[in-house]
């Protein structure tokens, strides 16, 4: 798996979906279906929830440790 930020992978998608997506982005700032998909995937993977939850768990664990129960 390429770890470089600019490395790329090829994906296969149904042609009719690609054509529908091309139609959808006509006149928008998305220059290609790849750009559109990258945008959607970035949105989906950029959430901060998981990180916040890990921090919140850590706070409780530390508190339990302070109280001598961990």
């Amino acid at each position: 798996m390429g770890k470089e930020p600019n490395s790329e992978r090829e994906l296969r998608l149904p042609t009719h979906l690609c054509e529908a997506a091309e139609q959808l982005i006509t006149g928008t700032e998305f220059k290609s279906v790849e750009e559109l998909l990258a945008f959607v995937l970035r949105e989906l993977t950029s959430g901060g929830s998981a990180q916040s939850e890990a921090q919140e768990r850590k706070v409780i664990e530390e508190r339990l440790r302070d109280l001598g129960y961990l």
Partner: protein
Amino acid sequence: MSAQPSVLLVTVDCLRADHASFMGYSQPTTPFLDQVAADSMVFPKAITAGAPTYYSFPGILASRFPLALGREVVGIAPGEPTLATVLQHAGYRTAAYVAGNPYLSSRFGYAQGFEVFHDFLSEQLPQVGEAVPRARSRLNQQIAELAHRVSPLGRLYDELYFQYCHRMTASKCESWDSLRRFPAADVLVDQACDWLASLDQQPFFLWLHFMDPHAPYCPPAEALKSMGAERTRPERGHYLNATWNRTDLGVERLHKYRDEIVRLYDSGIRWVDTQLERLVEMLRNLSLWDSSVLVLTADHGEEFLDHAGRFHAPSQPYQEMLHVPFLMRVPGVKKMALSEAPFSHVHLAPTVLDAIGIEPQEAFEGRSCWAEAQRGGDWEWAVSESIGRCTNPMDEGKRMGGRLLVVQDRRYKLVLDFDRKREELFDLENDPRELRALPPEAEKSARVSLLRKALRHLERHADGFKRELAIRARVHEVGLEWKNSDMYSKTLAS
């Protein structure tokens, strides 16, 4: 019950448990429900899974804690099982009448499972101007800026401007109906009755969400009369609501209006009760009442300066916000005394389904307490969660704040505010109004027990299905945001 029972789910926005007379309130807010309660399971301490509405309803309808799909997700995810989808799948006719709460709209996934979903959001209700008009003249803005440079002058300016605006708009306060922002309970019940009358022999699931006790508090004149407050005129109601909404008044000054405001709020509850009586009468006339389960609860409570706050901010997780009424009337099942331990709203949907013989969903986070309720109930503790600073879930910045986690058992209540880095433990037995948090090292074993429950709550792992729901919800959200963006408008125009 012989035939498959129908289910009537009634949710009342902002109804705190201690303001329903069937829960022991001294004012006659729910005389009809008092009678129903005599033959119902009344849960003494139902606790909402989160507050306000957008953090509460996933618990009620989908048996899911509000942040279980990540704090990015608000509402019900596309394809998420709910009471409505399960019952629709079981062959029920389904309808929802939701009194104009935008957080309970199809945009947030609440229409799923309903063949009729009426949220009243597109209806034009009469709008009398706010006490403070939105636009001020440039000269007025300059005077306001100058006045606020000197503290006493600023307060004087605010007071004069408020009184001026009130006088300008008070003449339009012809009736209580002209002040109301949401359809009143009678409007919903009228439509629900029409729908019920159109049904054939199939069982139904009907959800009614009433907003009558929600601010601005503008009950119908008839409800005020029932509560002995008929002398309160619409102009006074306008003034009270506008004053109660002011951000420049201190608690001491607001206290002067508290009792009158509470009377308006109570009258809103009374109107819901009156209309429920009418609805049940209709069910009786249609010979449906004897085969209908009635479930009544609230999404959250309301604060009247109990902790120096008003309305229902997510940052105020006190019992007036989290403790809600919960009543289940199941034909043929006798009333019995239920456990006074906290009962989490996440158990509501599986318990209701179990009571009518339908298998609860595996995806539900709560469990059915139906069998144990008939022995008095073994539930012991409840968790509530929200994002304390999220007063607007459409704002991603607010949505992604720190969690406010509350864990309570029979006696103690632990509040963990991760945003403000604050931990408070209350002894609800000796301090039921939560006025004094215990010192940090006090009641160590109770504190540790609740901290462990909090940790266990955060350690729940989202299974594949929950992760899939989260993805669906976020893709849906991306689509909605894109649709609302300029970019989409350009696409449509091209």
